């Protein structure tokens, strides 16, 4: 299986960056206690860490950095990162009030401890091999620029070649304005790669996390074969403030929450963070089973009453 070999060999051989590498803007204050922004409760920070950053009282899912998600999701030491040499450019020589995009990229790398807003690699989840692409909201709001798109497409292409499912964990505040139309075109680029993945019959499972807006919602994330979301995550095309300003209407209760999307038929399921790993393992197992059966091998034998009850 040369495809599988390449799938594995492209990794950088080093352990994933841990949370201790992150120097800037941690989501979680390094104090003993953390205040839940949803219920206002004061939570023992260590308890929050044990729960995967979910409020034990109100179930509020705190935002996570990409590497935290990877750590929670994958089997220990199974993650091999891809394309760590890719760096953003400033193709438009974009300058806003705050200075050049080139400078901003440099500062963001320092502050966030990441090189870009998307981390990709291969991993196993409960023993099932998969490709992973995880957005980091801490890097320029996980806006989809050229490197984001390129890393994602390379991951999709490797998944297609190796016939291994890809799981994307998505968040985004919107477009990478500083890369202009190059940024917009990443929507077409990533979706086009998924079209080929689909032709190859390889699954894409997307997990939408808070917040997920703009180009990501309008491209690769929502055309996944299975779309799931974390409880309470805000997901939409246009931001709520923009909609309120333009329509002059009060937004309905629960507007753009994961629950709202489920009710409107846009996602397959809402999965609490604590159950995500198991649910993904189930799904990967079922796709694996389909692949096996489609090649002519059926392992089961009918046992009456072998069900779950």
């Amino acid at each position: 299986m040369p495809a599988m070999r390449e799938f594995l060999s492209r990794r950088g051989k080093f352990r994933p960056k841990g949370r201790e590498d992150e120097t800037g803007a941690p989501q979680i204050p390094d104090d003993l206690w953390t205040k839940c922004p949803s219920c206002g409760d004061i939570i023992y920070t260590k308890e929050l860490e044990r729960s995967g950053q979910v409020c034990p009282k109100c179930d509020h899912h705190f935002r996570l950095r990409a590497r935290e998600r990877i750590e929670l999701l994958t089997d220990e030491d199974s993650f091999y990162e891809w394309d760590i040499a890719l760096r953003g450019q400033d193709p438009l020589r974009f300058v806003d009030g705050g200075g050049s995009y080139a400078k901003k990229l440099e500062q963001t790398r320092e502050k966030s401890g990441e090189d870009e807003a998307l981390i990709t690699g291969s991993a196993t989840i409960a023993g099932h091999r998969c490709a992973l692409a995880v957005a980091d909201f801490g890097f320029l709001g996980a806006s989809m620029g050229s490197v984001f798109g390129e890393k994602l497409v390379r991951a999709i292409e490797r998944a297609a070649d190796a016939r291994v499912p890809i799981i994307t964990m998505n968040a985004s505040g919107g477009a990478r304005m500083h890369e202009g139309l190059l940024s917009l075109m990443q929507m077409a680029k990533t979706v086009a790669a998924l079209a080929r993945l689909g032709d190859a019959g390889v699954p894409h499972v997307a997990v939408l996390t808070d917040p997920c807006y703009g180009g990501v919602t309008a491209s690769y994330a929502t055309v996944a074969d299975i779309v799931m979301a974390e409880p309470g995550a805000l997901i939409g095309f246009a931001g709520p403030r923009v909609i309120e300003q333009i329509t002059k209407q009060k937004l309905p209760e629960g507007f753009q929450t994961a629950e709202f999307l489920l009710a409107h038929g846009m996602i397959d399921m809402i999965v609490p963070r604590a159950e995500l790993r198991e649910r993904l393992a189930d799904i990967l197992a079922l796709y694996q089973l389909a692949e096996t059966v489609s090649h002519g091998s059926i392992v089961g034998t009918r046992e009456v009453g072998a069900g779950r009850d």
Partner: protein
Amino acid sequence: MTDAASAPLNAWDRVKLARHPERPHTLAYLSELSPRFVELHGDRSFGDDLALIGGIADFDGIAVMVLGHQKGGNTKENIARNFGMARPEGYRKAERLMRHAEKFRMPVVSLIDTPGAEPGIGSEERGQGTAIAESLLTMADLAVPTVALVIGEGGSGGALAIGVSDRILMMENAIYAVASPEACAAILWKDAGKAPEAAETMRITAADLLGLGLIDEIVPEPVSADEAPREAIAAAGAAIGRHLRELLQEFPLDDPAAMRRLKDERYQRFRRIGAWREDAAVLAGIANGVLP
């Protein structure tokens, strides 16, 4: 309801059994027959219909896409499930999941159990007819094996929408009809009270339909499924599994030529259905170039 053992049941008895509130519904079958079921929701354009559910199940070592109408077990559930009457978004979800199944080469198993598609203002606004028609079209052309089992009520187009299958099975006490006996009686007898008579002449029982060649097999209910649900479900599971294995053997999923044969046989199966004759005198007239 143990009359089954003593006296033969008439069509109206079967209607009552098929609608029996204790009769197991789709989720009961899934929980009994699959150790691993991932339900998938939504039509990706308007809503999620709880009256028509679907998802991927490990069915005896085969990954299948299961679609099924879902009635409730009590009034509250029945309101949430709209009494198993699907709306357009239900049929659009079904269509989406069928394409999912085709993409990943999973057979499709349908569990049919509905009084019919919902008649309502919103359903008409969102194209109930179009949604059912598109589901039929997708299913007729699907390049994976498909097995349907009528577990309760097979009500009209809303049932058929997920029943254009390579194998069609019925539980012994299920019914399958072009319209409800009540509606038929109201239209043809101008009296809904004549429903039992209508039920009889409409030939809606499993035995009738096997006799007409419209279904392939009857899953026996020595004790009716409302009284012995686990036994009925186990028998259903065995029958579905057998047909799936036969189909997978005859039509290997990774063989494009086999999938073309499968679609061709499915076409011929439905192509044949109907009762007609050709008037010999007219045929002779055509052959001779003159009208008879």
